[in-house]
């Protein structure tokens, strides 16, 4: 160690080995999955190159395709951020699906029913804020409950968020078939009435479905990054997530931090649902936004729980979903193959040892950690 003069040293925040972990390995996981997916397509008698060309064209081939990809991506980003925040705080929020549904239901209700209840119109900006804010709150509270149970009773959040999912999804089904059902006599679908125009989050360009929700999603990613890495609260969340005992030792109120983490996670998931309602569908319908909360887990893992990674992973998943139809149209290869590839990606990311082995990448510091070693 040579003497370093003064504190002004280069600020090398990200080291190459970390780049390997957070960048290279996920990238190789995606590539490997594409290759395996291609083999599956070939085995089924298709032409993988044509299929991927179709996929690419469907996702990026025109301005409209691009716009549609962002439409897919925005709920992925919100929900992916939700799961990533939970992971950073050491909490596995499997409940994003239910939190998202409640966010959508709350936003829809505020969107179509609140003006009537108040007996007055609500100014547009305020109405949008109320609808989206209401959705965020609904998602947040729904996630904070398992957070509270974890903090004060030790009840495991995985179990409790799954339970809360059942409640949320069944309750949503009940509401959309009953009290909140669109009363239009022609309607046979489980859906809410349309929200009034003042609650619409307007499109950015009239000719495309590309909407402000996507821009908000990118903004949220930046906000999440800032919060986690630049604030005291973020430090507390990360510390609690990385080492609960050390957080306690350091004087962090870990119970409060656990609840706040879940609240924040649920707010993001709720926002995913609320934006779908206010910016895209203008109502909530059973079957809208299904599976986003679960895809979000894969997205968070692929994005290594980093907001930038979540955005990239969301764009990838969105492009695949969006391009799949075009692929099927051009090559008659069923869209299900995309689900297979996504599942493979998740598999390779979760079991990154496999990827490291295939490409001969040594683990980060060449240390194994199956157990904690000496003394417990």
């Amino acid at each position, binding site marked *: *160690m040579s*003497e*370093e003069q*003064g*504190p002004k*040293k280069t*600020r*090398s*925040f990200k*080291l*190459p*080995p970390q780049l390997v972990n957070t960048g290279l390995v996920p990238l190789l996981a995606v590539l490997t999955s594409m290759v395996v997916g291609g083999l599956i397509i070939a085995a089924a008698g298709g032409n993988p190159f044509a299929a991927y060309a179709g996929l690419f064209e469907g996702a990026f081939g025109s301005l409209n395709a691009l716009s549609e990809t962002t439409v897919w991506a925005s709920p992925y980003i919100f929900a992916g951020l939700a799961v990533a925040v939970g992971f950073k705080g050491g909490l596995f929020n499997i409940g994003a699906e239910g939190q998202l549904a409640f966010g959508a239901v709350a936003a829809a209700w505020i969107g179509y029913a609140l003006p009537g209840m108040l007996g007055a119109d609500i100014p547009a900006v305020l109405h949008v804020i109320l609808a989206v804010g209401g959705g965020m709150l609904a998602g947040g509270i729904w996630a904070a409950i398992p957070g509270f149970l974890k903090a004060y009773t030790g009840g495991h959040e995985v179990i409790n968020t799954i339970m809360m999912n059942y409640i949320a999804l069944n309750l949503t089904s009940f509401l959309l078939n009953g009290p909140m059902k669109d009363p239009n006599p022609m309607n046979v679908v489980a859906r809410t009435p349309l929200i009034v125009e003042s609650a619409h989050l307007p499109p950015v360009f009239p000719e495309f479905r590309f909407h402000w929700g996507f821009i908000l999603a990118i903004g949220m990613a930046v906000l999440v990054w800032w919060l986690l890495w*630049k*604030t*005291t*609260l*973020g*430090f507390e969340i*990360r*510390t609690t997530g*990385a*080492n609960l*005992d*050390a*957080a*306690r*030792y*350091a*004087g*962090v*109120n870990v119970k409060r931090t656990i609840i706040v983490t879940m609240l924040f996670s649920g707010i993001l998931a709720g926002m995913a649902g609320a934006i779908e309602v206010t910016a895209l569908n203008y109502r909530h319908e059973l079957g809208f936004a299904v599976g986003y909360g679960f895809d979000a887990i894969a997205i968070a893992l692929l994005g290594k729980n980093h907001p930038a990674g979540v955005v990239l992973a969301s764009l990838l998943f969105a492009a695949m979903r969006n391009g799949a139809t075009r692929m099927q149209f051009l090559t008659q290869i069923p869209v299900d193959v995309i689900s297979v590839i996504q599942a493979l990606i998740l598999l390779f990311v979760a079991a990154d040892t496999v990827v490291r082995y295939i490409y001969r990448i040594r683990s980060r*510091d*060449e*240390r*194994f*950690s*199956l*157990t*904690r*070693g*000496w*003394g*417990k």
Partner: protein
Amino acid sequence: MSIVLEAHGIRKQFPGVLANDDVSFDLKKGEIHVLLGENGAGKSTLMNVLYGLYKPDGGEIRVNGQAISMSSPRDAIEHGIGMVHQHFMLIPVFTVAENIMLGMESVRGLALDEKVVAERVRELSRDLGMELDPNAYVHDLSVGVQQRVEIVKALYRKAEILILDEPTAVLTPQEVEDLFKIMHDLTNRGVSIVFITHKLKEVLEVADRITVMRGGKVVGSTTPSEISEAELANLMVGREVSLTVDKAAAQPKETVLEVSNLRVLDNLGTVAVDDVSLTVQAGEILGIAGVQGNGQTELVRALTGLARVSGGSIRLDGQEVANASPRRITELGSAHIPEDRQKDGLVLPFPVMDNLVLNTYYLPPFSQGLVVHWDRALENANQRIEQFDIRTPSAMTHVGTLSGGNQQKVIVARELSRPIKLLIASQPTRGLDVGSIEYIHGQIIKRRDEGVAVLLVSTELDEVLQLSDRIAVMYRGKILAVVPAAEATKESIGLLMAGITEKKPA
């Protein structure tokens, strides 16, 4: 005697550290060759190279005179090399037999014949005089027994060369004696052993030959008969080290910590701290001696707000802090060097910088409210690294990759760099090398001389005797006696530690 394993000119570069610099080493058949060196000297690196885990950047390895190249531990095992790592590699939810079978090639088809393996493990361990139950789950076993599983695992694979990386770091004195017996037994059967340690006493007790490493290089080779403990220490550290502590007489002033009739339950609900009363004055060190598990851990956790107090009172600087939050206690001027540094004291995947502000991140100058000024934290980190001589490639290095001594220095730097009235140091030098121990002892004395009240808890009797001004002995949750250090001897304290209070036998 023939040379079974030979390394020549080994070089291994890590980002920022040359961990092995032209290292040569050899092992003769049936000997115990001690590899001695401070934390970070490069001992584990060398052994991991010999075990095929790390690829050396240069040098040659010979087994029984033949040059070999290894790309994984599998190759090493094939050449008869077995290793018990500093950090165990057992899977806790598997049984002993399953762990031993794991990764073996000699599996007929897919049908792992667990019964057969279990029987052979039982025979082999009995034969070696260390009875293992092959069906026990690893997480139910004590550290000492887990270590035996690792040894049997290596021998099961027909290892004739056994590398033990700091095996005694976590063993009780009795377990250490047992291990030495097993080692001698093995060498009598022709097994050759590399034994890594930084404990000087052990070296002279077991070594046939000694190789000393420092800063990635071999700095000497010798035998126990040619060298003394003090000479070994100097060789290892690279300068004169004192194995004793120099300190002036204490100047105790006002009472800082006053504990009365304290009662604490452990997590099973039994009384761990039983009616304990003690005081610590500014400018003195009160040492608490005792065999591990006599309530010291719970006492410290209660004093620092990490465990519930079920009776009695704790006054810190005049304020009642029984059941106060850890943050309030810290803010009143208490510093805590925790017993388990990796579990409580550090966040291993975080950079050194973050760990140095683990409990001050929310205070000026690091933060005035919501935003953390990481540039100031970085500045702080660079200062502490310099001031406390923390050996790390940079402030942004993850603390988990540092050696134990440097991890402990991070904690010491953090806790001693703010204004404090009370220092609670629990096992402050456990597992550390001579140089780090000397340094940390020096820092503790320095704080005492500056008027800090110090409560030192250690199961190392030598440490308590060297540092303390007064000594309290804890036994089964009670304080049996408090004696001035000047009147204490190893024997008198040792008797108290065993619970014997009578001055004279009847």
